[in-house]
């Protein structure tokens, strides 16, 4: 068997099986979550105008700061670090993907997040906006995603 590289940020316990009922996962072990997100945001902060080769603007530093503030205030070990993805209009989004379902937090401005809960298999296509400083709302949405992973 070839060697396997393990990403510690994405390690989780396995969901409990029918043959073993006494325990199940309750949360991620993600000790580097905040450092990972901050590091990634610093990379986005370095993007020059036209980073997409089609005239994109540089990522708004206030949006970056808002995204970092939210990441730093989330509870520990809640989930693995998101993909932090730039958008050509100078904003960014967090993406968590697993199989065919996902969660997106698009920072449409420094003060507002547009979220998308996406799980076509279960008929979930929900989106709305919430304040970027609403940690409770962000936490609840992330818990929706993690609960889906474990069920």
């Amino acid at each position, binding site marked *: 068997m070839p060697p396997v590289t393990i990403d510690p940020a994405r390690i989780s316990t396995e969901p409990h099986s029918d043959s073993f009922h006494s325990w199940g996962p309750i949360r991620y072990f993600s000790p580097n979550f905040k450092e990972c997100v901050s590091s990634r945001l610093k990379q986005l902060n370095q993007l020059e105008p036209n*980073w*997409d*080769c*089609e*005239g*994109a603007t540089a990522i708004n530093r206030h949006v970056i700061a808002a995204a970092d503030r939210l990441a730093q205030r989330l509870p520990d070990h809640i989930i693995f670090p998101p*993909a932090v*993805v*730039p*958008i*050509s*209009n100078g*904003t*960014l*989004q967090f*993406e968590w*993907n697993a199989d065919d379902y*996902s969660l*997106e937090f*698009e920072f449409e401005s420094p003060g507002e997040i*547009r*979220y*998308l809960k*996406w799980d076509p298999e279960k008929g979930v*296509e929900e*989106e709305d906006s919430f304040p970027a400083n609403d940690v409770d709302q962000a936490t609840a949405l992330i818990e929706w995603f993690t609960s889906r992973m474990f069920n």
Partner: protein
Amino acid sequence: MSDVDGGGPPVANHEILLRAITSSDWWVEDERRVSSAAFKNRCFSVNVESICGLEGALEHLNTILDCPHGGLASFECGEARRLSFDARHEQDPNHPDNIAHASVYGDRSSSRRSRNAKKLARLCSIVHVPNFNG
């Protein structure tokens, strides 16, 4: 490209549009698909395949955009229009010689804007796989 509605003629629904994947951040390597972030700008560029062909779009990607490691995603114009992405055949001011260019305008005021971007990303076919690690 312009970010102002140019009012160019609508691209016909049957046309296949080619979207350049020019950022490694837009490519989900594990799942070999494009991120919805590639479709969240209010206006983005595509090339009309019937005008430039796949080879022409690749040449545009490699030489004009100078993104040889990038990829190309394709989708049908009519399907995108049903998701409120309206393609207009109009000149790219940065590359005026590109006669295949069209601008796609998304409805960023729609209450379904995130879903629509996600659906457009999911219906894309990858006609040239990016190789950002190459």
